């Protein structure tokens, strides 16, 4: 059974300037032990989708569709009911660790609270487990640092503290929203290594939201490419990286220079600008930037359908030229 099943998810924001369609008709599933990578530009709906799954959308947002976690429908659950799931079976880490750490409280208080609240542990037991988890994520001298405030940690260490917090209750699903974007490459490598190890050890499923295709290549088996609030392509990492089926996926891969090989003199750029979600046209959102656009593209939204390589794509083309 799928751990997380999302069906026909639509997210709308009501703003003074009109309605914004942050996500339209999203459907996907994450199985136990899977690691799914989600790529897309800023504004492609990737973060909002997971905030909706966690029940953390801003007040002016509304969700329709279905989100089932371990078979249970999450849409419509009360805050108390959601609190029994998020932070326990489903946890999220963010780009900026300070969004989930309280600057006024010692790390010890923020960590043991989770175990006392959700697992009913005594303070002593909670402390012991929390320190063990800090050690597990590679924080040296964890017992001492446990008593410090968040600002006393460096950026990479703070990210580790946040990961440790997210993993305290051994969640089934860890949602990582650009967890390494703000970090230096050397620290990013440490964090990615840690996530890979934890996945093997604890068996946590991971949903990795990122714009860095290299991060996906190292960590994810399945990849979902989003554009303009819709799924453009969903397939195995092998298919996405070696036989992309959607023009946007192809363009994205071509436009990134690679460290391991000499690139052509000019990069193959995707022309044009990212879509404006307030003024989405009737057809495929990628139409204005697509090199292969043809007659149905500007007017008809392509539905996600099976594609070569065992994945799915939302494109009117039968196959890429």
């Amino acid at each position: 059974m799928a751990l997380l099943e999302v069906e026909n998810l639509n997210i709308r924001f009501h703003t003074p300037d009109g309605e914004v369609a942050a996500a339209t008709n999203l459907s996907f599933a994450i199985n136990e032990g899977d690691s799914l990578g989600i790529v897309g530009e800023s504004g492609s709906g990737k973060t909002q989708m997971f905030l909706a799954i966690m029940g953390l959308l801003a007040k002016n947002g509304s969700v329709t569709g279905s989100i089932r976690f371990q078979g249970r429908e999450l849409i419509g659950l009360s805050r108390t009911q959601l609190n029994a799931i998020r932070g326990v079976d489903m946890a999220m880490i963010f780009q900026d660790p300070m969004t989930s750490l309280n600057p006024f409280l010692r790390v010890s208080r923020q960590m043991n609270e989770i175990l006392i609240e959700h697992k009913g542990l005594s303070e002593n037991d909670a402390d012991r487990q929390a320190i063990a988890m800090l050690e597990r994520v590679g924080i040296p001298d964890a017992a001492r640092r446990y008593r410090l405030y968040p600002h006393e940690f460096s950026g990479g260490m703070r990210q580790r503290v946040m990961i440790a917090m997210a993993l305290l209750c051994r969640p089934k699903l860890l949602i990582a929203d650009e967890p390494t974007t703000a970090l230096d490459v050397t620290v990013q490598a440490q964090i990615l290594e840690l996530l890979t190890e934890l996945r093997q050890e604890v068996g946590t499923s991971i949903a990795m939201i990122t714009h860095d295709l290299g991060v996906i290549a190292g960590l994810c088996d399945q990849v979902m490419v989003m554009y303009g609030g819709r799924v453009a392509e969903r397939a195995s990492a092998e298919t996405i990286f070696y036989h992309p089926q959607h023009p946007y996926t192809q363009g994205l891969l071509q436009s990134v220079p690679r460290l391991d090989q000499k690139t052509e003199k000019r990069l193959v750029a995707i022309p044009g600008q990212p879509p404006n979600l307030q003024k989405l046209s009737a057809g495929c959102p990628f139409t204005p930037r697509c090199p292969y656009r043809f007659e149905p593209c500007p007017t008809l939204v392509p539905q996600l359908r099976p594609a070569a390589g065992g994945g799915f794509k939302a494109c009117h083309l039968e196959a890429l030229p």
Partner: protein
Amino acid sequence: MTQPILSVRDLKVHFPLRGKGLFSSSIPLKAVDGVSFDLFPRETLGIVGESGCGKSTLGRAILHLLPPTSGKVVWLGEDLTLLPSEALRRKRQEMQIVFQDPLASLDPRMTIGDIIAEPLRTFQPHLTKSQIQDRVMEILPQVGLNPFMRNRYPHEFSGGQCQRIGIARAMILKPKLIICDEPVSALDVSIRAQIVNLLQDLQEKFGISLIFISHDLSIVRHICHRIMVLYLGRVMEIAPAAEIYNHPRHPYTKALISAVPIPDPRKERKKQRTLLKGDLPSPVAPPSGCVFRTRCPQADARCAAEVPILETAENERHLVACHYWRTT
């Protein structure tokens, strides 16, 4: 051999930090600590390193947007550190900078036409209104913007377009050098390639030199001829781009390169990584001897005692500051 357009010699930028006690003397934060290099006409030099390594400070100190503490910045044979401020200001026409955050570097209350024209009004006050307008109309298509957009405001543009506006403003004075400080880091992946291509086109067309500051090694490899690796304000290694990637000599360069994820699952999963331990040490109290030794897998007693000098490795274009570059 051609003369360098810019020669930086032993440049230091120290920021005084207040000491702990009320009367204790200030402690210098050595953001840039003895950097030397040459930049040649039409060359692109990449400056890479982790955040806090001093790459942005170095860029600003070259332009004297930050006063250097000591050292020399020789621009076309003239030492900028000795120039009076008015003469220095005039020199700046030849050296421009493009910033990381495209929207934040544009005044929200000026039209983009006015933003791009501002350097002209400042440095060439004799130009008439219509001459200025002609120059703006001429530069806009060169950075890929439509001339009729000149009366719009920055908020009407996307990040990539704002960066084009920033580049147009830097180009309008026909500079010989543009320092690009993380020019594509804030942009979407699909837009980065557009801006990188634009910078390369402009360089080719106008023969400018570029200093490209970035933490993205993949882009730096693509656009730069030579690359300088900084760590805690010091040069670890400097060499031609292909050489630094194919034959890195400094353990830090090696670790940096191995840490960059490659968008190729088969390669990426097989890759041997040199994982560095820990974070960048505080620049207020840098390690003695070699500043990298606390994270270096090969450091020994000599590294703690003796500062390695930047010396010639394979050839005179490849310099490295490590006691053990021959054996690593």
